Structure formats: structure tokens, C-alpha cells
């Protein structure tokens, strides 16, 4: 399903990445290298710069310092080989299947190719029973799965997920999480933020820990959860660090 192309856009690298608004620095000197493989999870308290990091990496925002590189090169616009799903999914005011077809159209699929491909994606995301329903009247969990189907439609090599289960009840969150695993196993690199520590333990291959706009740790998941090196991350894991 996902692209396993001759030329990978990975690794994704942050080089001294910084972002400031009106003189207030929100992210400082973040450097990291994200390789192909299992999901990279970005953890950190509220306001630590997690979503901001995703947006900078995806190209929705321009860094005010440093740069983002893909396989060593800078891309000046959002690459077609990556996609993003937001905490509150933004669905087009169209039918379920039309939402997926829209992404396929932007990817250059002809009108005749789209319906079958879209139906296949709805099947994979458990939405095949409702192709003609208005997308915006779906339940929150269904909306998020549709957003994932639409992101998956562009066959991204990298998929950014910003708190994909943050607004969902536990049952819906579990379905979405399972879908994320499926997408990851099909070969897409997942880079996501989450508040759900159990989910992070289940999914993460490596963890980036942000605090107050600084990257304090980037380590393999087992090592991070066994014993993080920074006192802030330890406090965070104990549930004592909220800000």
C-alpha cells in the first residue's frame, strides 16, 4: 500500500529548529534525526511545542531559526509524500467517499480511478458502510478514521498525527489506534504527539520529549520508559509535570 520507493524522503532531520512569534520563543534549537521504521512519538506537557514541531516538520509553518531537511535536502513546500491528521479532523462538507476522492484528485488520480480506490480505503478504515453519508455528521471516532483514510489516500511515506485520539472516548480511540498500527505496518512512518501514556508505550519505537520549547530527550522507547535521563521527563512520566 504505502510507498516503498527507490528514493526515500527519510530520514527527517531538524537542525537547530526554532520558532518565535512576536519575540516570544516557542521552540528553541531542536535538533533530531527521525529514521524510517516504527512510530516516533513526541511527548511533553501542554505548551511544550509538540504540535508546533509537527507543523514545522510538515511545512505548514516556516521555522524562524534552523531548518528541516528530508533525506538531506530542504523542501520549500509540503511534499506530496507526507500527510497530516489533526486532533480535530477537518472534514470537507461533502459525503464520506467524496472526502477521500478529493485527496485522490489532488494526487492526480483520474476521475475514473478514484471511486474504486476510495472505496478500498473506506473498507480498510471500517467506513465502507457509509460512503454517501455527510462526513460532518459522523461520530467523532468515525470522523477521525475518515481523516486517516483521506491522509492514507495520498500514500504518504510519512504521516504526522497531532493528538489523533485526544478528542475521542476510549472505544473510539482504540479503533483509531489500531488503524494507526495498520498504517505503520503497511510501511508508513508515523510521527505523532499524544497525551495518552499507555498509547505511547504501545506504539512508540522512539520518543522525543519536549519541555518548554526545548528537546530534552530523544531515545528509543524502551530506554525512555525504563528511565528517562532528564528529571523533567521522569516527573512527566510520574504524572507530576503538567506545564
Amino acid at each position, binding site marked *: 500500500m504505502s510507498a516503498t520507493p527507490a528514493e526515500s524522503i527519510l530520514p527527517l532531520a531538524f537542525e537547530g529548529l526554532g520558532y518565535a512569534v512576536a519575540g516570544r520563543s516557542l521552540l528553541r534549537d531542536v535538533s533530531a534525526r527521525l529514521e524510517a521504521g516504527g512510530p516516533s512519538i513526541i511527548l511533553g506537557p501542554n505548551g511544550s511545542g509538540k504540535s508546533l514541531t509537527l507543523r514545522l516538520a510538515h511545512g*505548514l509553518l516556516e521555522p524562524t531559526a534552523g531548518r528541516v531537511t528530508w533525506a538531506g535536502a530542504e523542501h520549500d513546500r509540503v511534499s506530496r509524500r507526507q*500527510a497530516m491528521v489533526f486532533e480535530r479532523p*477537518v472534514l470537507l*462538507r461533502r459525503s464520506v467517499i467524496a472526502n477521500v476522492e478529493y485527496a485522490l484528485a489532488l*494526487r492526480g488520480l483520474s476521475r475514473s480511478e478514484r471511486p474504486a480506490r476510495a472505496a478500498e480505503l473506506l473498507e480498510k478504515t471500517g467506513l465502507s458502510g457509509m460512503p454517501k453519508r455527510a462526513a460532518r*455528521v459522523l461520530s467523532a471516532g468515525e470522523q477521525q478514521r475518515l481523516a486517516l483514510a*483521506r491522509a492514507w489516500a495520498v500514500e504518504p511515506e510519512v504521516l504526522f498525527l497531532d493528538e489523533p485520539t485526544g478528542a475521542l472516548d476510549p472505544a473510539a480511540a482504540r479503533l483509531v489506534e489500531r488503524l494507526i498500527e495498520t498504517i505503520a505496518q503497511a510501511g508508513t512512518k508515523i510521527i505523532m504527539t499524544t497525551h495518552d501514556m499507555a498509547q505511547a508505550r504501545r506504539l512508540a519505537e522512539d520518543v522525543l520529549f519536549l519541555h518548554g520549547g526545548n528537546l530534552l530527550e530523544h531515545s528509543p522507547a524502551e530506554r525512555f520508559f525504563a528511565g528517562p535521563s532528564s528529571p523533567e521527563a521522569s516527573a512527566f512520566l510520574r504524572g507530576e509535570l503538567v506545564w
Partner: protein
Amino acid sequence: MRLRGEVGTVLARMQDIRTAFGTALRLLVTLDPELVEIITLSLGVSLGALLLAAGVGLPLGAAVALWPYRGRRFAATLLNALMGLPPVVVGLVVYVFLSRSGPLGGLGWLFTPRAMIAVQFVLITPIVAALTRQVVEDLWEEYSELLRSLGAGRIRAIPTILIDGRHRLLTVLLAGFGRAIAEVGAVIIVGGNIAHVTRVMTTAIALETRKGDLALALALGIVLLGISLLVNAGAALAAEFAREREA
């Protein structure tokens, strides 16, 4: 004595009005040819103006909403201000342009339905554009990250947003139509209310009332009221539909 005389006059007038009302209803029920002609022309002129105004106003409003450079605020303010153009002044200006010695005098449009379409177009295009800008700006605010993420730029966003705003934009068009069909000052100046040529509902009502022929005026008034109610009901329905399906 004098009192009785006045009461008599009032009663006589009420009788007049009752007769006029009866005649009006008969004109409506029998689909009086003159009445139908006037209504048809009114609808034709206003729909024509709406079509043109939509062709210009929808893309213009969208362009102003999505304009990435300086001047967006100014253009938006200008559009909002133009929504309140006084119809008689617009009529006068269009009259000057279309008059024999005016810059567009060669077209020979003055006192034809084309002049009336032109004047209504000038009146409602700012309304359509200004309301469209608001709709598009709201949707862009919501969609911009998603569309950019999917690889759609601002140009590609225009059809997307116009399609997704379709129910709200229908309300916008109905507002423009309502304004056009009910307007009298501008069309009477450039149309002249010529029987069988440029006589529309509003100008006929104005003229027939002045002449004292209340029957035709009342019949037209009822139709105009009905159209106005329909337009507003349509707008309300569209808004309701949008709320339900588009959360």
C-alpha cells in the same frame, strides 16, 4: 353634518379599496395577461442580473477573501461599503453612462430591459461579493491547514471552498435576488416604466398607485410579497440544511 360627510367619504374609500382588492384577486386568479407580462419581465430582469452578479461576485468575493497580499482588509471594507449604494444614485450614474451622449450611449440600452439588468447588476454585485467574502474567509480559516497539507494552494482552494460553501452561498444569492426584485428607484430611472417594454412589478406599483388604479398595484404587490416570502423561506431552509449537514 360635516362629520357624517367625512364618514361617508371614508366608507366610500373603503368600498373602493375592497373593490380594488377583489379586482386584484380576479387578475391573479385569471392570470391577467398584463399582470403575467409584468411579472415575467421582473423575474427575467432580476434573474439575469443575479446570474451576472453571481458570475462576478462569487469569484470576486473569493479572491478578496483569499488575497495573500496587502490590501485585503481595504478591499473587504470597500465591498461592505458598496453594499449600501443608494439605488437612485446608481440609477442616475448608469443613466448617464447609457444616455445618448454618455460613454456607453452607442449601445442603445437606455429604456430597455438590458439597462435594467445592468443597473440591478451594479446594485447587487457588491452584495453578492461582500457576503461571499465572509463565507469564503470563514471556510478558509477552517480549511487552510488541511488544504495545504493535502497539497492544494490558494488557487485550487477557490473551487473547493465555493463547493463546500454552496448552501451558505445559496443564501447569499437569494439575498441578492431579493434586493434586485424589490428595487424601484434605479430601474425606473434607466427603464422608464414603459408599458410592455420595461414595466416591472415595482415600477408598475409605483405608477398605478399614483394613477389611482389600485387593483393592478395590489395584485402586483401581492405577487411581490409572495416572491419575497419565498426567497426568505428559501434562505432560511438553506441555512437550516447547512446547519444540520455541515455542523
